[in-house]
């Protein structure tokens, strides 16, 4: 196990060391201590390592992640796991705004609450939030899935494309072109799988969730509106 003291060794040393780990490595387990809310911790990883940050992080922790598992033993600042490609990011506390924004793949688990714009413009990432999500979450979400065990704030899924949104609690309001849709067997199966991988199978049952998706009126060409384009 490798331990890295961010206070003593500095952010650039941490990230350049981690960027040096390409492909297979024997240094697979990393502990980062004294994060003290620093920005850009463990961004741009591209190796199958398991890294734990012992404390809360600032902006953009684990951004652009590939392959790695990043665990945050605290809360995360804005833009955590932004544009993640693959791998897993697990946050024990809360996540600030635009968690998982534009994510292409991988799994983001937030065990507390996420604030506004969670999963904005997501493109394939899977997000499991044990608590609530704030306003404008999944705005223009293109693909992927989001499972929320708590409540959703205003304008959920505004201008949504093909991402699937599952919310157990209340939804304050739906955004433009976002509608509730029936839960079929395939959706129950998807939620069960995400609850299990999101360390939440003991907290909720798939049948307690409602599904929200795109009405497909906003982004599909409609010949009747040709004059408007």
């Amino acid at each position, binding site marked *: 196990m490798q331990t890295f003291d961010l206070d003593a060794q500095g952010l650039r040393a941490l990230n350049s060391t981690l960027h040096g780990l390409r492909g297979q490595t024997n240094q697979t387990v990393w502990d980062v201590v004294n994060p003290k*809310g620093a920005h850009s911790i463990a961004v741009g990883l591209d190796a199958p390592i398991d890294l734990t940050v012992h404390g809360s992080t*600032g902006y953009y922790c684990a951004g652009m992640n590939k392959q790695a598992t990043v665990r945050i033993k605290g809360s995360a*600042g*804005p833009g955590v796991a932004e544009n993640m490609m693959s791998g897993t990011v697990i946050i024990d506390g*809360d996540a*600030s705004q635009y968690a998982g924004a534009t994510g292409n793949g991988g799994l983001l688990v937030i065990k507390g609450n996420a*604030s506004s714009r969670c999963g904005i413009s997501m493109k394939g990432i899977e997000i499991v939030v044990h608590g609530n999500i*704030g306003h404008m979450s999944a705005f223009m979400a293109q693909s992927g899935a989001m499972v929320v065990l708590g409540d959703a704030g205003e304008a959920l899924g505004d201008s949504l494309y093909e991402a699937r949104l599952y919310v157990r609690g209340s939804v304050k309001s739906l955004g433009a072109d976002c509608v509730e849709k029936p839960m079929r067997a395939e959706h129950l199966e998807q939620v069960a799988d995400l609850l299990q991988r999101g360390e939440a199978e003991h907290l909720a049952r798939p049948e307690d969730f409602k599904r929200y998706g795109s009405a497909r009126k906003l982004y599909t060409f409609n010949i009747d509106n040709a004059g408007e384009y």
Partner: protein
Amino acid sequence: MCGIVGLFLKDPALEPQLGALLTDMLITMTDRGPDSAGIAIYGRPTDGQAKLTVQSADPARDFATLADDLGRAVGATITAEIKDTHIVLDLPAPALDAARAALRTLRPDARVMSAGEGIEIYKEVGLPRDVAARFDLARMTGTHGIGHTRMATESAVTTMGAHPFSTGPDQCLVHNGSLSNHNSVRRTLRAAGMTFETENDTEVAAAFISHKLHEGSALGAAMEATLTDLDGFFTFVVGTKNGFGVVRDPIACKPAVMAETDQYVAFGSEYRAMVGLPGIETARVWEPEPATVYFWER
């Protein structure tokens, strides 16, 4: 981008450390706002006394005999402490308005930073570390305080454009964001009798709240009104004699984190501003909700 810090002490045992704690928080927010910095610090008021904090670009000229000159003009005993470009005048509370008026004649180039029973405001252009050192902020004591590091967007980088802005007795406001309707709100407030020192958007927000308080609104209601009457992006932290308040616009894209323990309530634009506070590891830490007013008063 700007940085905001705030600290409201519940435990009097921490009061001797207020300046030191706030200074560390302020310096941590340097990269959110390296062009100017300011702090409003509230000390325990002395019965019957008030404080007038005045800034001058030429302190040697303006401050040398200021306390005596003002004292003669208003017929009161006034004592002074000079801190770099600022002077804190201690005077009987009933003489405060007369002293402000006399200052305009006696020292036309000097600017009032704050007036009230507890408040002192210090602000200047420069890196937060340098500004804090010039005023020896780390040695100040008090019950609560608010600090700001500025990255200017709406108006010039000047001392008067730095935050906090004070537009009423013992009141101040700091802001992260930008307002789009400040010109029209300023016109309305001018018509209602408010005066302005700058073209800055934040000064309008401060005056808006001061005007509401002057009209009889409670602090919470005055802050609530910013949500309907001010257009733009904002996280405001407001200071009064008894406490401080926080409000974010409904979009809430300007960051805000709060922490509370038995000893204090703290505000930071980012969590890292608060990592040096005692007991932060076990504090309740949360993000204030959009369009929601929070305040703490003693």
